[in-house]
């Protein structure tokens, strides 16, 4: 088995991983950045809208332009990048199994940053296995990476930011969006995203859900999903206890159903490494404990981005930067004072992204996660003292 070594291994070349790699490398560390995809950038290349935040967060710049700039910085800094390569396992001593161009390798690194991102949730309903029922992320990949329209007329399930943004992107790509349905009594995503698709004539049904998707003819008409795929979508109103109201059903013609029903952190490697977790629903489920350096309960193993709790790309980039700085400091590439200065700057930017009515829940969730880490550390210290 071939050995691969680096001072810092960063797993996942999305916004968090790119920033972690850049910070650690520019401090002087030898950094290997690994991604299972053929292209780096994670979800950034599918984010064609202008980002929010402030100038320091690159507000007003479109996601794919942020990705291009990040990739240039990472390449110029001298980070080694391995694409189409999969880290499939990790031991508590942080040695990793790596498939590098189909070759099984043993990867060892003094510091490891896991920035594996999140995966889309699924929701079952009658007909949810029909061709034409896809994740909203899949629709984004088809439009922006493969340049294929997933369907001609789409029903979007979920009015969080993903559902709203992907609806707008489907319209821009030339599809019709028949409706956005949201089971909650209110729109979860930013109002400005909702307003954009409303102005384009898309109805948003809050307090409604999809009850059934069905076809009818074998040929599937000229619908994108093809033979046997979705042709009709039944929507039903929900009462205050989230139960379907009999008789409230109505049917829309559509060849595609996009599910935008939340994301879950991709924590498999972190579990495997033996890290401690906390269940935080606001972050999408079980998330690894970490400290202000983004270091987990396994020394030298850092986490950043959606894998620490689902937020968005701007916070992922800042968390990645924190992890990169902390790893470089731990390796002796940054003095304590230089690292403290960098970390304080990043922390201030992170805080401003977790303000306001949309940030409150995430800020509280992050505080809970950090507090759980502090409790774990003090328990360990006591145990050590005994």
């Amino acid at each position, binding site marked *: 088995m071939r050995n691969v070594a680096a001072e810092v291994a960063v797993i996942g070349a999305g916004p968090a991983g790119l920033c972690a790699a850049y910070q650690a490398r520019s401090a002087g560390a030898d950094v290997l950045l690994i991604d299972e995809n053929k292209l780096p950038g994670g979800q950034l290349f599918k984010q064609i*809208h*202008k*980002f*929010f*935040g*402030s*100038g320091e*967060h690159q*507000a*007003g*710049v*479109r996601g794919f*332009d942020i990705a291009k700039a990040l990739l240039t910085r990472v390449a110029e800094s001298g980070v080694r990048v391995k694409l189409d390569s999969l880290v499939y396992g990790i031991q508590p001593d942080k040695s990793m199994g790596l498939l590098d161009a189909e070759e099984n390798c043993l990867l060892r690194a003094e510091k490891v940053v896991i920035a594996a991102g999140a995966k889309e949730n699924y929701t079952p309903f009658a007909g949810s296995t029909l061709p034409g029922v896809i994740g909203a992320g899949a629709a984004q990949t088809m439009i922006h990476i493969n340049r294929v329209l997933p369907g001609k007329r789409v029903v979007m399930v979920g009015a969080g930011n993903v559902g709203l943004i992907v609806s707008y992107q489907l*319209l*821009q790509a030339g599809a019709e969006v028949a409706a956005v349905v949201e089971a909650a*009594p*209110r*729109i979860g995503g*930013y*109002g*400005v*995203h*909702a*307003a*954009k*698709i*409303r*102005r*384009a*004539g*898309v109805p*948003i049904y*809050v307090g409604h859900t999809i009850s059934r998707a069905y076809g009818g003819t074998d040929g599937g008409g000229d619908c994108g999903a093809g033979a046997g795929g979705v042709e009709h979508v039944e929507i039903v109103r929900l009462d205050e206890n989230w139960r379907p109201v009999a008789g409230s059903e109505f049917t829309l013609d559509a060849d595609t159903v996009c599910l935008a029903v939340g994301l879950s952190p991709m924590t498999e490697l972190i579990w495997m490494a033996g890290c401690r977790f906390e269940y935080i629903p606001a972050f999408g489920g079980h998330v690894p404990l970490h400290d202000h350096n983004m270091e987990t309960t396994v020394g030298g193993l850092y986490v950043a981005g959606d894998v620490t709790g689902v937020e968005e790309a701007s916070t992922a980039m800042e968390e990645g930067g924190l992890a990169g700085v902390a790893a470089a400091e731990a390796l002796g590439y940054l003095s304590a004072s230089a690292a403290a200065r960098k970390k304080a700057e990043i922390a201030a930017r992170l805080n*401003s*992204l977790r*303000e*306001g*009515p*949309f*940030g409150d829940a995430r800020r509280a969730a992050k505080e809970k996660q950090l507090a759980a880490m502090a409790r774990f550390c003090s328990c360990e210290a006591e145990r050590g003292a005994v």
Partner: protein
Amino acid sequence: MPEGLVYTGIPSAAELAACPGIPSRERTAKGRVAVIECVQEIPCNPCERVCKRGAIKIGERITELPRLDGGLCTGCGVCVALCPGLAITVVDKTYSATEASIDFPYEFLPLPQKGGLVEACGRAGERVCTGRVLAVKKTAAYAGTAVVSIAVPVEFADDVRTMRVLRATEK
């Protein structure tokens, strides 16, 4: 069905009335001015940064709503293309004796042609009236967003916020 942005995706009349980005009736009567329909506290402040006249204020806490100073705003429209939420228009109720002009961000293809007629639409995408295209601007600084200016009867100036391109059969 309750009203308001979080229920319908449309800012209600009450939300707009309370919105600090909306110019006063007196200011609007004087001519071109930005109308910032930003009613929800999200972390975002490019409008403040791009306004060279200092007419838009948010401050340190970037989730505060933008406040428009109608006295400083000249209606230059730089903010229209650069608001990530596409929430700003420039309205000129003095465009002519009978018409107002509305400048709004537009991110669909095909772009309309100057001098052409379009369907002027409201906040729910509903047709309000016919609009005449005065200008289509898409500079490099706008980063992909076009700003379309259309003329509509002045009585619709508060309702028209976007447009649809008319298909050949509808002209």
